[in-house]
């Protein structure tokens, strides 16, 4: 059992606002646990009153029953209040943790998102936090009650009869030993089981996930064979793991029943010798029955808590992730940029020791149309990441309208760019919501005009509810090309002073693209624009073409001059006409 103190301190910090509920929870847990423990004593008293025929004091019985009723009522109420408090504390603190995690997510540098798979971040925010809530809830509910029950039982037993109590106290650890022994010896089976299960999940993910490919290669029989082999292995290990772990209950129950029998023996003899009453014996027997339960529960809670703390640690890791450098205090707000850009001696790398951009220089006059071409991995997208300040340069500077972009607020800088990316992203909501992303107060006429410009209007009109059609996560039923058209409509609506088109039309068929080009051309007039494209036809019209390779600009000029220069660009251009 090792708990990370730092993590625990953090958890306590999140619990602090709910201290009142926690206090209530502890208080009511104590009340209900101790009262519940007192019930067997009362039952014992009742048994002592009913001695035999004609020897029952009905008044005394009635008063015992009255006491019992009170205790039952208060204890049950206490239990309920405790549970409700625990729920409140657990769920609310977890909500706060999720909230901070999400808040941090908004401030993390893009490098974090790019280097961590979505699934990993999500599982920290959702699954881990959930496990934490469960653990916390179980811990609160059972840990304290369990300990109180153990202490209370001990005191009551000793107060009834020391020596019989000793029998219970000495023998109970036996059942814990048995449980621990079994757990220790089965853990290796569980480890094996989870390894084999992991293999199975991979097989299922790969084969069923790519079932169409499996069919295309008539690989069905091999896939089945692979799966069945692993499945048979898993069956064998699971049987062992399930069986051996299921030994715990019967074995501990056996030990407990033995203790019960011994209490009956010792107690019976004690009663004969007049050391205790029959009622005491019945009380004792029910304590012996219940005594081990909290022990088992607590050991379960401890594993659960350990698990919860590990999970909490993982969320805190996300929350503690270093935020991007904040905007400067005196940062200027960029409004209606003219579009002059000056990139000076810029170097940048995602990973240290692996330089990507080296000493890059570029001057762009307002309204210029710049196209960037080059093989995959040459740094095209990186350059755009830097322009938008998704990443900060390592060395050198980028200036817009003569001022370093680090001196503007990020928000205002980005507002001046319109960006369409290759990987389109639509937010869950209606088509209209998506188009008006950059201009929430746009009128319907404006929205439709923008959609017509980007040739998205006609397919939108065919959707069940036109502009009010709700699209799910990741665009759902829309094709990649249609999604891209919607992203283009966004820009056509908000019309920012500078444009970035990173493979903006890659999924649109070339005929539609040709039609959009007109609209693009009109839009780009007077706006500084950057265009990244695979299809060389889309960039021929640019004022300047940058040919990038390995993080450097190796050629620069317009289409005609680059072609006649006969360098890398002309080779690239001609290759599309070869067989």
């Amino acid at each position, binding site marked *: 059992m090792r708990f990370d103190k730092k993590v625990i301190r953090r958890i306590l910090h999140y619990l602090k606002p709910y201290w009142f509920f926690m206090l209530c929870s502890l208080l009511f847990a104590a009340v209900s646990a101790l009262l519940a423990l007192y019930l067997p004593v009362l039952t014992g008293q009742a048994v002592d009153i009913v001695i035999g025929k004609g020897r029952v004091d009905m008044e005394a019985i009635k008063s015992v*029953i009255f006491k019992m009723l009170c205790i039952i009522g208060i204890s049950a109420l206490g239990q309920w209040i405790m549970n409700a408090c625990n729920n*409140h504390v657990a769920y609310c603190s977890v909500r706060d943790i999720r909230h901070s995690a999400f808040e941090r997510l908004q401030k993390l540098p*893009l490098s974090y998102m790019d280097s961590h798979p979505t699934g990993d971040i999500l599982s920290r925010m959702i699954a881990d936090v959930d496990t934490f809530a469960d653990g916390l809830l179980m811990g609160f509910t059972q840990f304290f009650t369990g300990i109180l029950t153990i202490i209370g039982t001990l005191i009551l037993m000793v107060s009834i009869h020391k020596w019989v109590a000793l029998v219970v106290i000495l023998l109970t650890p036996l059942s814990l030993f048995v449980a621990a022994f079994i757990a220790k010896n089965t853990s290796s089976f569980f480890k094996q089981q989870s390894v084999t299960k992991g293999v199975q999940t991979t097989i299922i993910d790969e084969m069923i996930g790519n079932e169409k490919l499996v069919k295309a290669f008539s690989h069905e029989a091999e896939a089945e064979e692979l799966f069945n082999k692993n499945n048979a292995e898993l069956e064998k290990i699971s049987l062992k793991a399930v069986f051996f772990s299921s030994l715990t209950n019967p074995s501990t129950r056996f030990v407990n029943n033995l203790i019960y029998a011994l209490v009956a023996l010792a107690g019976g003899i004690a009663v004969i010798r007049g050391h205790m009453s029959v009622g005491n014996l019945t009380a004792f027997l029910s304590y012996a029955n219940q005594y081990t339960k909290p022990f088992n529960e607590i050991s379960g809670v401890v594993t659960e808590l350990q698990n919860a703390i590990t999970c909490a640690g993982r969320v805190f890791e996300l929350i503690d992730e270093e935020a991007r450098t904040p905007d400067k205090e005196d940062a200027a707000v960029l409004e209606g940029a003219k579009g002059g850009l000056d990139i000076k001696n810029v170097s940048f790398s995602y990973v240290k020791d692996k330089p990507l951009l080296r000493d890059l220089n570029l001057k762009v006059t307002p309204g210029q149309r710049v196209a960037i071409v080059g093989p995959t991995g040459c740094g095209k997208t990186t350059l755009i990441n830097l322009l938008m300040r998704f990443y900060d340069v390592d060395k050198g500077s980028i200036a817009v309208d003569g001022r370093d972009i680090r001196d503007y607020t990020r928000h205002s800088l980005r507002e001046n760019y319109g960006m369409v990316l290759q990987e389109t992203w639509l937010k869950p909501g209606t088509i209209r919501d998506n188009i008006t992303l950059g201009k929430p107060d746009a009128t319907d006429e404006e929205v439709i005009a923008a959609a017509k410009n980007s040739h998205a209007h006609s397919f939108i009109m065919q959707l069940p509810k036109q502009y009010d059609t709700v699209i799910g996560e990741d665009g759902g039923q829309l094709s990649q090309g249609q999604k891209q058209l919607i992203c283009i409509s966004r820009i056509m609506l908000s019309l920012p002073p500078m444009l970035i088109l990173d493979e903006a039309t890659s999924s649109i*068929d070339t*005929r539609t693209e040709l039609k959009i080009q007109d609209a693009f051309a009109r839009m780009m007039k007077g706006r500084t624009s950057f265009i990244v494209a695979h299809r060389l036809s889309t960039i021929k019209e640019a004022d300047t073409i940058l040919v990038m390779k390995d993080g450097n600009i190796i050629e620069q000029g317009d289409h005609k001059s680059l072609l006649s220069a006969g360098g890398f660009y002309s080779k690239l251009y001609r290759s599309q006409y070869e067989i």
Partner: protein
Amino acid sequence: MKNLWKYFSSYKKECVLGPLFKLLEASFELFIPLLVKQIIDVGIPNGDTSFIIQRVLIMAALTFIGMVCSLTAQFFSAKAATGFSARVKSAVFSHIQTLSHTELDKTGISTLITRLTSDINTLQGGVNMSLRLFLRSPFIVLGAVFMAFTIDVKSALIFVVTVLALSIVVYGIMLITVPMHKKVQGDLDKVTGAARANISGVRVIRAFGLEDKEQEHFSRSNDTLVRMQILAGKISALLNPVTFVLINLGLCVLIHQGAIAVDTGRLSRGDVVALVNYMSQILVELIKLANLIVQLSRALACGSRISSVMDITSSMKDGDKEYKNTAGSAAIEFKGVSFRYADASEDSVKDISFTLPAGATLGVIGGTGSGKSSVINLIPRFYDTTQGSVLIDGTDIKEYSLNSLRSRIAVVPQKSVLFSGSIRENMLWGRKDATDADIEEALKQAQGYDFVMEKEGGLDYMVNKGGNNFSGGQKQRLAIARALVRKPAILILDDSTSALDYATDAALRKAIKEMKDAPTTVIVSQRSASIMHADMILVLDDGHAVGLGRHEELLKDCEVYREIYNSQFGGDDNAL
């Protein structure tokens, strides 16, 4: 659900013996209060120590036999549960292999994966639990009530009333909370969705400065979730206190009635103690049972989800003719082919006919959604035509057995997928008995030989899950090589060179052309350059064939083709 029962059939013995031994154990447990009663009624009043020792020894013996029975029961139920779930898993897996693309589309791959993994796990847990406990708890409850009857009928009626009241209350609480828990699950999905959308759209969100709005949106879903959780929690939290109250109320009534009965001499003191003991046994078991019912209902839900997968049958009938092709390439003919996806309102392929001689190259071009992929999916019979027929080497492909047909066709899909394992293992998907020399030859043709050899271990280099240790272009070349290893009679490239630059793309096409026994090749592409040199080009627009012929002819006659071509090459630069 019914179609899953049969997987128990190999475990009939275990399914009977498991619960049986559990029942035995439970019945031994029911004797304990009777023995305590005897100690109190006979041993203690008579001061008979040896009688007490004797009863305690019987207790110990019963306990021991009980444990042995219980261990046996655990073994049988573990065996039945793990065996059952392994059989079900295996059956579901092979069943999925028999489904055609139509059913896969309809059901959704991710659904199938959840069914096979988490659903079956829950089911296994449920089966194991029910075999072990589900019979035990009701048996102890009923047994305790029965034993109460043997002691005293009048007191036993208190038991009956208590158990009935409890069942109603527990059932009622569950009736309210189960839908609430479902709602909580739905709310949690919304929170997950909000977080996921935020991560995947981070660039757009930041570009438009929408961080605050997103935060607000997330907080809203988060708050809704918590409110529902707390409400559901409050009601669920009633379960334990209410059970506690009811049982103990029963206990009070029992003591009161018992006291009167002892006073009149109808019952002994030991009888009352025994009755009280039975009542507490019921309490313990009922709490277990309530937890069990929740788990069981979940397992049942999962069971029916799995069972629904087994109910899906393939809509495709296998042919019985072996397809044999020795020439190395095959002739393809489409005769008035139309095709509509299940549940679609319109045909995706409309009345297409063409004949492609063996060894020739067909280029397929058209805009997004024009039906290119749908056309080529009909060749390996991934889907059946709605009208008309597809013929390979002069015979309708429906007559061929699917296996023999597909083993002579190689498809390179749009999205190149590699599997975890060595490069060699991936290549062997093409042909099981391919030699290293075959693989290297295919890699060379696919323009992938050089980068593979640069990897540590060459063909032994391990591909990560999803192939994420290769770039997009490398994955595409490996996927192409995998298809070429097969030495197919028909090679289908479904827009599978999009990540290659023009030069590599051209070199690849040249290499395929120059192969010994070059296959009949079908190339789908958005790029004019990739298909302009094909023997025949099929131009698709909205599912119709709007052009069919050679490049020069189409440029002259086909408006759509001309538009596509000009959009990529620009009208004035044709001379280049």
